[in-house]
């Protein structure tokens, strides 16, 4: 029983670590304030949940990743020219639109009822081991990627977009690449979520989840991959004591959201670089 609880925490941590790492690529390294990240997670979860009854997971999960990455590309195409708060608002609009579609395209998504009975990926132990291994792999790949010439162009785009363009770098293409990679990883996290929880509904697109991701990212610090892992770990563990204090269950949800929102506010107000951050949020 206790080990089952820790396995669950491990899976939650792994999922959020994947999401925060990939969000850091867009927000921290490329400087794109992307509030559509949770939508890619939702798209990944929905794609594999809808497809998996008709095909093996070995096909439906990669398809989930590809479609999430395609959605990222699609979002980057019109939004590539926007900056700062306008980009944030347009991508936030994208999250809302995805949530609306999930709620209303009932023949495909079963609307607010959600999709139940999704195929399990395997035993929980197998899920936690593969997920944590995946976090390590993604961490190492991203660590390598940001030091490659392409990765350095992304950081140049963040620091000075005009200068990067002056040096002949195709800023727009790099932004698309960054969003596609980041969205693909988020889609993979979504696929794990769907095949672990075995139920999804439109609340995966909720703005509360988005705030949770932003808190993890900013607590850990921008442009620090270690920070993202640390941020995910801290915020997954932080609300756990609420479970044991014995609040009525109707209060636990809102209290969790309040803790995350308050933490985000405090960090933005008093420690804008987070724990391990290398750049400021702009």
């Amino acid at each position: 029983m206790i080990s089952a609880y820790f396995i669950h925490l491990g899976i939650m941590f792994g999922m959020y670590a994947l999401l925060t790492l990939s969000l850091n690529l867009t927000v921290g390294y490329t400087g794109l304030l992307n509030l559509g990240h949770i939508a890619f997670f939702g798209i990944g979860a929905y794609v594999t949940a809808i497809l998996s009854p008709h095909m093996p997971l070995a096909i439906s999960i990669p398809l989930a990743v590809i479609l999430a990455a395609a959605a990222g590309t699609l979002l980057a195409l019109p939004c590539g020219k926007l900056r700062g708060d306008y980009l944030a608002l347009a991508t936030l609009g994208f999250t809302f639109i995805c949530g609306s579609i999930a709620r209303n395209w009932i023949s495909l998504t079963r609307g607010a009822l959600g999709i139940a009975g999704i195929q399990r990926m395997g035993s929980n132990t197998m899920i936690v081991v593969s997920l944590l291994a995946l976090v390590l792999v993604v961490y190492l790949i991203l660590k390598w990627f940001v030091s490659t010439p392409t990765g350095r162009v992304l950081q140049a785009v963040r620091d000075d977009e005009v200068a990067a363009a002056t040096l002949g770098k195709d800023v727009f293409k790099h932004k698309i690449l960054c969003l596609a990679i980041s969205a693909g990883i988020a889609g993979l996290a979504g696929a794990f979520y769907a095949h672990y929880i075995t139920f999804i509904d439109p609340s995966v697109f909720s703005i509360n989840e988005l705030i949770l991701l932003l808190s993890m990212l900013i607590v850990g610090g921008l442009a620090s991959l270690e920070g993202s892992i640390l941020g995910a770990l801290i915020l997954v563990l932080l609300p756990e004591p609420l479970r044991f204090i014995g609040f009525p269950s109707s209060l636990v949800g809102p209290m969790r959201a309040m803790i995350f929102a308050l933490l985000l506010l405090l960090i933005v107000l008093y420690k804008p670089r987070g724990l391990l951050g290398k750049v400021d949020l702009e």
Partner: protein
Amino acid sequence: MSVAVQLIMNGLIIGSIYALVATGFSLIYNVTKFVHFAHGSVVAFAAYIFYLLIKLGLGLPLSIILTIIIASIFGAVIDWIVYRPLRKRKASAAVLLIASIGLMILLNSAILAVAGADVKSIPITNPVFDVWGARITQLQVIIIAMVFLLLIGLYFFMKHTKLGKAMRATADNNAVAQTVGINPQKMYTYVFMIGSGLAGVAGILVGLEQNLFPEMGTSMIIKGFTGAVIGGMSSVPGSVAGSLFVGLVENIGIWWLPSGYKDAIAFALLFVFLLFKPKGMFGGKS
């Protein structure tokens, strides 16, 4: 035919409430130059305060006045606690936006924790009229009249009073306004009080016309913000026109789409305008 009249009426009624939200929002945006996304949660907060005061038996007139006062003080407190320290640090508009989204979630969750998830409604007597085959309630007539009186009053306040002119000066050019002795911090406090007071009125009207639920603030800011963006964020009359447009489009849109898509229509409008016409319907190129 009567269905069309009804849909247009419904659109105008809800659109005028959105206009109130959008006006407060764009006033704040123009003077402070950042997106105060928690503005919708101030509307929700006011609606719940109003509900509470009515339940306490304070009567309609006193509850209305107290709600507006509490909402406007609440707005000033938000500015003082959250936004002022960020401005002092010269944080960018994007950071202020993130803070305001955090604040919105904090307020929504606080309402959910205190008031519960169940939908609440405020009982009032509300006779129904027949206008060109459409059913309009007395409250809806009052809503439209009140919103337009308020907006006209606001227009004269901004155009002809000293304080209104000082606010517009801060909005136009903060540095120059300071050199002629206008204290920007004071203007920020005033604009948050006025904007949140308008949000208070919107909260009361929404509370009476529709039901109260903890997430209502998110929906209100999306509609109000969309209206403001469509009308051009720097123009208050534009925000009003944009909000009426949002109300009309989402109500007429459900002729073709299932009513669940009502919100999606507003998001799609927002997305399209942010991408292609960020200065609004009447604005020039970005």
